[in-house]
């Protein structure tokens, strides 16, 4: 069987940055997996995800969160981006872990559904987001926070038989 979990690109920040983008993503894979381990300039910063530079109100998300005390669920509708956490957030020193599963990203028939798991100092979350577009995803942008030096972001492609 051919190996099929392929790193597409990795960004390790050499200086602070307010956004990280993966561009010109080919349609050669079935799913994308983005693994992010950022730190931020201030404690408690949340960040966003957008696709194809689309900042119109085409995003929504359902959140499942545990903050150490209670499990709760929340929703954000008709947003101009995906706020990737509800309670979770990034800190100045504690590297957090985010895994984004972006399945069937290059199909041009269906809207795109994204699974987001995050583990931060504030909460553990398992979230699902919708991008209401049938366009193939060719660009992913993370923004809304100041990511600091040493933050890592790796995009993988998975190709089904």
């Amino acid at each position, binding site marked *: 069987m051919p190996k099929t979990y392929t790193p597409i690109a990795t960004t390790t920040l050499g200086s602070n940055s307010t956004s990280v983008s993966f561009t010109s993503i080919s349609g050669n894979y079935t799913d994308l997996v983005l693994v992010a381990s950022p730190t931020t300039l201030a404690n408690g910063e949340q960040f966003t995800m957008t696709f194809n530079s689309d900042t119109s109100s085409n995003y929504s998300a359902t959140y499942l969160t545990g903050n150490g005390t209670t*499990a709760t669920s929340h929703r954000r509708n008709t947003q101009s981006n995906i706020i990737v956490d509800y309670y979770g957030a990034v800190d100045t020193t504690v590297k957090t872990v985010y895994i984004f*599963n972006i399945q069937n990203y290059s199909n041009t028939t269906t809207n795109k*559904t994204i699974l987001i*798991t995050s583990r931060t100092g504030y909460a553990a979350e398992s979230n*699902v987001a919708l991008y209401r577009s049938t366009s193939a995803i060719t660009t992913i942008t993370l923004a809304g926070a100041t990511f600091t030096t040493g933050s890592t972001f790796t995009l993988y492609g998975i190709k089904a038989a």
Partner: protein
Amino acid sequence: MNILGIIASSKLGDAGDFESIATVSVGSGGSSSISFTSIPATYTHLQLRCIGRSSRNQNNGYAVISYNSDTGTNYSYHALTGDGSSALAQGDSSVSYQTLIYFPGALRGSNIFGVGVVDILDYANTNKYKTLRVLDGYDSNGAGYSSLGSGSWRNTNAITSITITEYNSNAFVQYSHFALYGIRSA
């Protein structure tokens, strides 16, 4: 690539390799169930990555999983699910399927599909029962579910086939897609 950070090699593949075993894409007629058969025992874990929507004339449809054509009540599952307003713990024992994956039903907006990532751990081990974990859900801009779950199959046989069925005897609609992968260890 090596996804576990372990470097080793064998005749069949490298440790940590993630390999595509088979894929089923549902066609225009829909399908009430799909199966992966003759799954080799050459991997350590399996991962099922699915995208789906149900023809059920309700808000939600569900996909359930069974193994080796076992339709006995040898399965159980637990899940923590968020519906956008509250978190709900649910589960069942002695049922004929291992887990529920939330897919949107026909009453949800068109072109909206749910997704799931299912890890079936140590699937070929003949000394213990089989456990899976799953992340799944969908959002339809005003409704939806996010869920994480686990399931058990009380059987020590190696898993050689997997059947995914629309729980309410409806169908998975066109563009639903199920892909099975194998993960090697050292």
